[in-house]
């Protein structure tokens, strides 16, 4: 949308430039002050514009949790599903509507704890999904419990003495499961994040982008890390761009350096493409490619 199309006003000023991509009738959103999720949503909206996509070209699916609420604020066909199941739900969407782009927006607990099995299998099968994970190292909506990403020694309500269990490193997980495109930024890296979203939107296959983002109210406070603003400053000082980072360098400890960048960018046929190619080859003329859903 261009500014000129933006006819709505709020008070005496024009409505926000992304208002055609967002459900402004639902603002303010439920996320806390100094939470990073809104930034990621804004960057995706910007990426859509930059990629030349209309809101009618994409769907957004999310699961449960703070990030799970993203689906409710984007003005596209959007699905707020159950905890952990955003990916398999979106797998159904993607296979029934291969003509659209399908984005899964998920938190770390949703995506790789309860939904972990779906995550690795969707990556393995190279399903045609752009999966964006907002990683804030905790279960924020339920009050700050231990997440599969919580760094060792960080505190959570269910790890009151600090965590002693190994967290998942999400890019490593995605890479080892076979994802085609893997990147990580923090919520401070607004331009690179937007560019990465744009690039990933215009590709096929399983694309995974992790965004480290502040949870001000729960994670930062419980771990005495100041506010969300302090975490943003921390990202500014401690993130390092390294596209060829090793698996070890990608690990995140408690308040250690955060290596960001685009780590994998390869092309394999997506599940749907592989299916069409293989079945077409085996069955020849008997093969009828999958029907696309929607009114005939």
């Amino acid at each position, binding site marked *: 949308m261009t*500014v*000129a199309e933006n006819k709505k006003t*709020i*008070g005496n*000023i*024009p409505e*926000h*430039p*992304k*208002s055609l991509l*967002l459900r*402004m009738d639902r*603002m*303010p*959103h439920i*996320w*806390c*002050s*100094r*939470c*990073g*999720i*809104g*930034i990621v949503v*804004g*960057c995706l909206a*910007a990426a859509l514009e930059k990629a030349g996509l209309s809101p009618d070209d994409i769907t957004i699916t999310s699961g449960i949790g703070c990030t799970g609420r993203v689906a409710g604020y984007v003005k596209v066909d959007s699905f707020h599903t159950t905890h952990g199941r955003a990916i398999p739900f979106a797998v159904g969407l993607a296979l029934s509507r291969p003509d659209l782009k399908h984005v899964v927006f998920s938190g770390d607990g949703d995506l790789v704890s309860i939904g972990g099995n779906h995550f690795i299998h969707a990556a393995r099968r190279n399903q045609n999904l752009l999966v964006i994970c907002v990683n804030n190292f905790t279960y924020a909506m339920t009050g700050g419990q231990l997440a599969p990403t919580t760094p060792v020694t960080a505190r959570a309500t269910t790890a009151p003495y600090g965590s002693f269990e190994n967290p998942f490193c999400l890019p490593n997980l995605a890479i080892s499961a076979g994802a085609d495109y893997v990147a990580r930024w923090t919520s*401070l890296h*607004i*331009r690179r994040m*937007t560019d990465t979203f744009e690039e990933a939107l215009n590709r096929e296959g399983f694309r995974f982008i992790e965004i480290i983002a502040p949870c*001000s109210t729960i994670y930062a406070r419980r771990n005495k890390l100041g*506010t*969300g*603003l302090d975490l*943003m*400053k921390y990202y*500014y000082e401690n993130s390092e761009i390294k596209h060829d980072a090793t698996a070890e360098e990608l690990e995140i400890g408690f308040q250690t350096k955060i290596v960001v960048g685009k780590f994998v960018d390869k092309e394999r046929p997506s599940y749907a493409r592989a299916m069409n190619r293989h079945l077409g080859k085996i069955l020849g003329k008997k093969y009828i490619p999958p029907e696309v859903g929607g009114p005939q």
Partner: protein
Amino acid sequence: MPDPRYWRKPFDSDKVKSPKGVVYVIKDRCKGCGFCVEFCPRGVLVLSVEFNKKGYHPPEVVHPDRCVNCDLCERICPEFAIYSLNQDEIIELAP
């Protein structure tokens, strides 16, 4: 007024015309995180003293002339409460 963040004057600063931006703040949507104030590369903003309806201090434009419409405030705002427009577009918009 020279921006203190430039350690030297760019060689081509006379030839390149910086865009001019105008910042808009949707005050009642703001939750006072301060991201825009902290990260604005031109130091255009400060947190205001006034409260909005929800009791937060929204940003206030104190150096409007410095804005180059870089979009950072819009992108980094988690609340969709601030953005800048190119001055030329605003003229078009005006009734």
